[in-house]
């Protein structure tokens, strides 16, 4: 009563978007927090 499931490793969505040169536009459209986070250290805690 055990089953082995073989797992395939594939490039992540992020990696594929980067390869296609689409990551920056994708993140601007979908993940503005990724940009905000760059400046998180400039703000007080909380």
């Amino acid at each position: 009563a055990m089953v082995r499931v073989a797992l395939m490793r594939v490039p992540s969505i992020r990696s594929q978007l980067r390869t296609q040169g689409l990551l920056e536009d994708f993140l601007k459209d979908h993940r503005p927090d990724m940009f905000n986070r760059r400046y998180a250290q400039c703000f007080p805690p909380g």
Partner: protein
Amino acid sequence: TPSLRLRRSSEKIYNFMDAQYYGEISVGTPPQNFSVIFDTGSADLWVPSSYCVSQACAFHRRFKAFESKTFHHDGRSFGIHYGSGHLLGVMGRDTVKIGDMTILNQQFGESVYEPGSAFVTAKFDGVLGLAYQSLAEILGNPVFDNMLAQKIVDQPVFSFYLSRRTRTSNPQGELLLGGIDEAMYNGSINWLPVSAKRYWQVEMDSVVVQGGSSFCPIGCHAIIDTGTSLIGGPTRDVLRLQQLIGATPTNNGEFVIDCTRLSSLPRITFILGGKEYTLTSEQYVRKEPFGISDLCFSGFQAFDIISPEGPMWILGDVFLTEYYSIFDRGLDRIGLAQA
């Protein structure tokens, strides 16, 4: 953060952008095959529906409920919000097969709307969550709960081996449902009690950077998550950590490292249950092909997860490729051993 959802006092993280390892399952009678991420960071099973007309669905296998003799319509809808969008769908029940195992009347979601471009490039069709039921969005038992209820597995345990090498290794990864594969690890297993039965969450003693700096010095919590590729931690800690390893931010919010400096970078040690889990720079830096050379990315990512237990870290594939992981539902504990 947008990738965080608060509901029923539990936190949900859906970060499909960084998932890397998938396997095959089938749904329905006769079986319809799907590739899914086996994700310890969520608890739902969903696959695209044949009724989905989103661009992302066009690139994936879609479940045809009308071709399955064992399908039961549910009538309720579900929605999952993730970091870069959301998906909507309807719920149903059907027979699910994983390898030779058959799970009857498994609740699952058929997504009928997958807006945006996130899933267009995804190599997987859906997600099979392996976290505790309290994290489930879709009502009913998660897959492994049903396997236990239907006494399909001998032991209430599943374990992951994830290989770093993509092309040369065989297998690239393995999920063993119902047991532990002793051939996949060295030494003894260190068992850690689950601290909250939502994620596979444990207490972490501290994170130490070679040379003295440390994070979470009085302890914090960590999630063992096969559905994300990096190691996540509180923003303030991770930004300092990036500085300590010489990683600089890109316009995309990612952090790059000079590949020629890898040998001089510090080791980083996660202390869990009094035992040290050390990653070298070769292990925590991810190399990705870029033209004729490689780009080196930091394997650390900022995530601010506010939980009753305080700030949390996420130990994803960067950690799990080095350590074989065992998830024990019988004794609510996680085992880690050198992979």
